[in-house]
């Protein structure tokens, strides 16, 4: 069982309190009806399925209740960092800093 740092609680909590929420930074179009079929298909179904660094959503379901984003390495299953929903994807420097 992993420990996951909730960026809202600012604390590491057991994985049992969390639920997974799929890939992060998949932006719902502002005006879905103006999207083409292909754009909408991509929004619905196309995911990066990354080997290695993966940006994903989690919810501190049985805790503070907040959705947040995480960077996790799908090879090692280790979290690199977590950050609040709405914040941009961390850049390379931030990832390096989080790793060290």
């Amino acid at each position, binding site marked *: 069982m992993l420990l996951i740092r909730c960026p809202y609680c600012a604390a590491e909590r057991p994985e049992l309190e969390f639920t997974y929420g799929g890939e992060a930074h998949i932006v719902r179009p502002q*005006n*879905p009806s103006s999207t083409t079929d292909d754009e909408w*298909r991509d929004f*619905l179904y196309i995911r990066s399925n990354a080997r290695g660094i993966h940006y994903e959503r989690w919810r501190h379901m049985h805790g503070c209740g907040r959705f947040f984003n995480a960077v996790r390495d799908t090879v*090692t299953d280790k979290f690199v960092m977590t950050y609040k929903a709405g914040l941009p994807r961390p850049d390379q420097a931030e990832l390096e800093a989080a790793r060290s």
Partner: protein
Amino acid sequence: MSTFRIPGKGRVDPSKPVQFTFNDKTYDGFEGDTVASALLASGQHLVGRSFKYHRPRGFLSAGSEEPNALLGIDHGPGRVEPNSRATVVEISQGLKTISQNHWPSLERDVGAINDVLYMLFSAGFYYKTFMWPKSFWNKVYEPIIRGTAGLGKSPTLPDPDIYSSRFAHCDVLVVGAGPAGLAAALEAGRSGAKVLLVDEQAELGGSLLSETDGGIDGLTGWAWLKASVDELAGMANVTLLPRTTAIGYYHQNFVGLCQRITDHLASAPEGTPRERMWKVRAKQVVLAQGAIEKPLVFDGNDRPGVMLASAARTYLNRYGVKVGASPVVVTTHDSAWLAAFDLARAGVKVVAIIDIRPIVPAHLTASASALGIEVLTSWTVTGTKGRLRISSLRAKPIHGSAAQAREFACDTLLMSGGWNPTLHLFSHSQGKLEWREDAQVFLPSKHVEQSRCAGAGNGDFGLARVLAEGAEAGVDAAMDAGFTAKASIYAVNDELDMTGISSRELPTDRNADTAKAFIDFQNDVTAKDIRLAVREGFKSIEHIKRYTTTGMATDQGKTSNINGLAIAADAVQRPVPSVGLTTFRPPYTPTTFGAFAGYNRGRLFDVTRKTSIDAWAEEHGAVFEPVALWRRAWYFPKPGEDMHAAVARECKATRDSLGIFDASTLGKIEIVGPDAAEFLNRMYTNPWSKLQPGRCRYGVLLGEDGFIRDDGVIGRLTHDRFHVTTTTGGAARVLNMMEDYLQTEFPDLKVWLTSTTEQWSVIAINGPNARNLLAPLVEGIDLSEEAFPHMSVGVGRICGVPTRLFRMSFSGERGYEVNVPARYGRAVWEKLIAEGQAYGVTPYGTETMHVLRAEKGYIIVGQDTDGTLTPDDAGLGWAIGKAKPDFVGKRSLARPDMLKTDRKHLVGLLTADPKVVLEEGAQIVLDPNQSVPMTMVGHVTSSYWSVALGRSIALAVIEGGNGRMGETVHIPMPDGTLQAEVTGTVFLDPENTRLSA
């Protein structure tokens, strides 16, 4: 009996005799004995038959690595456990043990014919033997394989024991309480860190328990051990867990420990758990698991009486048992010499020490000479004899002729092929291994977790180095956990360097193709099998493992993996590391299912959610069914009624007069805030802005993919406050989905969500007399048709308690849903039952609810829909707010595939024979004469007997169903094909006159 017990020797307690049985014969032992040590004390070596060849087998080891001595352990009814290692099972008064894998008896086993037919059972024999004819698989091969496969017999009775589990947190977890682990725990404990020290054995001490020479800080090994354990036991910050196996090492220093609490006791207080699974989160971990001795590989290395030299030493020094009267020691490593010396000093006539090496340390030969033991160096062993126990071995000089060979009579052969560090947990943690060519061992290299290895597990075998490494590891762990510590320095007496070499098969002058030189004793894999697998093209060790089954037994290859790997590497002529090492997987040793289940069995197997009214239903004879985690009243049979009769009666009573139903499990969400209506606009397909306070509406929730996810009635209490209901199973999912959109897509909306599922008990009142029942009991809500028409919601009081009263119907009758605060639920229910007697009020369950709604064509999400139906598919197109610019899933409804006319549509079905009730899930075809496989165009989703219509009804999804009204479709069933006509989904009162009747 105990002719092999040496009085005064060992750590067992002779003042506490214990009797147990082996194959119904009573044996004596002492407290502190294992089954193995007690049997050996009586000279019993033969304890089992091997898996494939049914060869007689004895004890190979004295520890948890044992591959051979697997017994059935019987602690009483329901407490039977197969495949238990006799080397770790502690004896207790009255314990029954039985040998396995033989018939009719251990001594005379018919299955031993396999040993003669061994050529048939070479590597991959399953794949080769059972190839053809294909038709033989189901009827011949598989039954035979299943009948003969497996070792012990599974228990047949329910396990009466209870099991426990516990999360725990510590600063330093030390795995293994040998000298390294003890030294580590002492340093960490002295630093003040919270320490957990675990060891799989009954007693802490590890290798110290097996050795009597050597001394630490002026004390004997045993005295130092006692002082150390006493000191640790006296520290409040240290927890000692003997009989506890670290079974798995997971991310972030999460380690599973299985503690055995009662197995070694003849009796325990009622309620004592048998085992406890610890789930430990440690800041730092010290792995001090020690090392496992490698067997030597030679023809006949599996006969009872052939065992690891270290095991003989353990039996002697720890249990006071000499394993034989005339042992021969065969070795490539110094450590076996010490076993020979200990036995000789205990009065055992050691026949010879045969060392494969040309040169051995002079101090060893000197000691052997002093003890009168014959020494043969640069000699090898080429075979053994003896039917149920070794009686002799043949040895010869490695470079000599057959004429120089000698036969040695012996009753035990003590072997050592060197030592392998125990790397299992380190490997579980994804730590990287490094091959040391000189020592021919894998050693821990790069740690991935906050951990460190110490002692023999790190490849260091001298006691001084082991203690120093343990102390250092303890200090480092404590410091890394934030404590201050300084390593003690230990003075060790008479330390001898232990050296050795590694060997593949021992050199032989005999035909290697007929040799039975075992590598994996339990799975009967020989060196020849490995070489054959390589010749047949298997190059990867993972493939060789699966083809030969080496290392796949219950011991997980603890004694066999490295020998197998070395021989495979030799056969493919590649260095060992390039052949690779098979993956170590948890658990380290076999672990009971009970320990994994912990508390979650019996009534705690899963949560059973019950409503406030559940107890009334139980008292009134309800039959229950599980719905999500809830149990719900299914129907209320009267004496003599079956389900069909009860449901027919409940349906009729409701349509004729009055039915009452516990709908409390419905999910409820309170949505509050100025943007509540806008939030619902964006979530549900329906428009909400114009819904007036005091009114409610049926809402459909889609996923973003356009498919129906949930539905329910939503009431507007005030401008800014809605009471949303969801399906029973969807409650948590819908709230999560709403929170998701609110937090991440619509954070601009001023609205908050709160689950109120359990705040309210919900009593559904349906039938022509529903209002007549409620009107006198309700205060503050005008129930007149004008003031409170269908789809209204009001806040007031009922029976003197607060209520949110909905007028709605899931039955097609005039209906109300009475919400009252949950703890009043039962009292209000009872009051309604009492007052309803005037109308023949009839409590009904979920089955009647289903029939009533199906008669009206009301869908159940998850039964009539399956995650591939759009609102149009389900006939709910009317619920879409087409003027709304957006709602979740709207865009998907315009995707090309969603507009196709041959999508599956929800339709009604009326069987040609009105008495036939279709089976839910039955497949539907258009052409009954088509050959198999037929083209299936849909399936029956709901099907019931309708007492109101006097016939069966069904709902189904059928391709292009909306265009097939009036057509006949076919439902092939095992005993004939049924016909049904496609109809609309509303079978009863399509004009909805009954809603206000």
